């Protein structure tokens, strides 16, 4: 059995999660400063959650394809997004972003406001407050959101297939491997991948529960 889809999936999901973590966290932090524009910003940032992955994939194709200025620019510096694993990373980031953003926002909003006010009256800068007060206090929730967005990135299928294709050993991820095996009539192979994915997901969810539970216990 060729295990390359497992490694490809892990590589894409890990790199994507690194980006998603930073982007989602800063977006969540930024949104807490907004007043009236909050609902609009929240809607825009959450939209990949409700769009069909094929729509996201289609939009990414247009954005990063040869016909767009961005695609041509990236191509000129040697970065190809179409039919590469980097493209799959972009798709995974976009799809998993709302999971991270919403989870982090919920965790940040639950932090006792007085901690932030106290930090401000003590003369701390906003970024210092994020690093030293907000993030440690919101950590269990932020960690859980990170794990969940990793799981989402790992299971990504539609958008990845559209932008990165299905190149064995290059862009064929686990979820695409299931699809390909089924199409090719190899039920046994499909079943093996299904088993691997289910057990992986289970481990991730249990990890997340342990993280949230531990954070809860530390505070009470």
């Amino acid at each position, binding site marked *: 059995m060729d295990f390359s889809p497992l490694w490809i999936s892990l590589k894409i999901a890990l790199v994507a999660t690194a980006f998603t973590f930073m982007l989602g966290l800063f977006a969540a932090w930024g949104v807490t400063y907004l007043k009236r524009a909050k609902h609009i910003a929240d809607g825009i940032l959450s939209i990949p959650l409700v769009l069909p992955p094929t729509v996201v994939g289609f939009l990414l194709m247009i954005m990063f394809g040869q016909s767009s200025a961005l695609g041509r620019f990236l191509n000129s510096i040697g970065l190809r997004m179409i039919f590469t694993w980097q493209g799959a990373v972009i798709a995974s980031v976009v799809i998993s972003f709302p999971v991270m953003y919403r989870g982090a926002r919920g965790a940040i909003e639950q932090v*006792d406001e007085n901690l932030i006010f106290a*930090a401000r*009256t003590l003369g701390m800068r906003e970024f210092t407050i994020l690093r030293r007060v907000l993030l*440690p206090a919101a*950590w269990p929730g932020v960690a859980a959101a990170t794990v969940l967005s990793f799981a989402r990135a790992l299971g990504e299928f539609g958008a990845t297939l559209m932008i990165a294709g299905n190149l064995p050993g290059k862009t064929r991820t686990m979820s695409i491997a299931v699809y390909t095996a089924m199409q090719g009539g190899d039920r046994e192979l499909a079943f093996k991948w299904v088993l691997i994915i289910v057990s992986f997901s289970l481990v991730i969810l249990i990890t997340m529960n342990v993280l949230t539970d531990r954070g809860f216990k530390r*505070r009470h």
Partner: protein
Amino acid sequence: MKLHVDIEKKYGNFILKSSFTTDGERLALLGASGCGKSLTLKCIAGIEKPDRGKIVLGDRVLFDHEKKINLPARERCVGYLFQDYALFPNMTVEKNICCAASDKEYARELIKRFGLLGLEKQYPAELSGGQSQRTALARMLAAKPEVILLDEPFSALDNYMRTRMEHEILDLFEEFEGPSVLVTHDRNEAYRLADRIGVMEAGRVVELQGRQEFFDNPKTVAAARLTGCKNISRIKSEKTDTILTEDWGVSIALDNINVPSGATHVGYRAHYFSYVKDDRDMINTFRCRLCRVIEDTFSVVVCFNIEGNTNDNSDALLTWIVGKEDWDNVKIDVLSGTFALKVNPGRLMFLN
């Protein structure tokens, strides 16, 4: 250093119009909950933004609506002690105190001075209430504030802890020489901790005076209630030398005391009534009808109406407080249902 506050803020239906000046002294803002006293502190600290007005500390303008100045909280140099102390749960005592201090030497000294040696590596969750407060006080001072604001520091504590924590606040005042504003609803606490007392009612500072004068001679109904005056009635002056107390339903002879112009109410403290055995033909002596007797720790609280009073509002019910030693002498007569009390007109407080 002088702190001048003159601000307005709308908060739903509530309108805050807070205005006072304090010059390096300890000021207590006294008021019932929801009167806007905490909101005033939050505006000074820069946590809330007033709609209008001005806040000036020394020669620095912290907030000026007209000039569009609104200094961020971190540049205001205002120390704020939160009700729940707001210690950072992920930092040790030492880190809590040092995290905002530019002068680490001074921060170490504060750890020593507030009796926190040996606790430096503990986390806030492991501290007792007193230790938490001391940590919060040290943390506040480590940032070298120019004014300190205390937001009901003892509201969550029992009586015993409260007395002990007060000592710590008094230690703080020895350490810190700038102006301070304490917010509280406890008149005794205000008296013990402040030089001057301001009364807040429905979002306004209605009275501001020295603490002794404030307790001896409150000027408004709100202030009199806050100083613990139980008996308050509307008044109407009748002849030159008597006033009619409308809620109590009796006239009181004034005995050459002048009623200040504008006085609309009169207050009489519950322990100033004197018991009279024989009430015939005595001036300012009234027959009373007993409503209820409540035994307190060191005194007995007698609630009564004046006989013949047809009012049935809450101000018609009067309170007399008798010491336990005297209670035994008057007990039989009072418990019989009717008795006589004398009012000393010199003790009347005229209120607006």
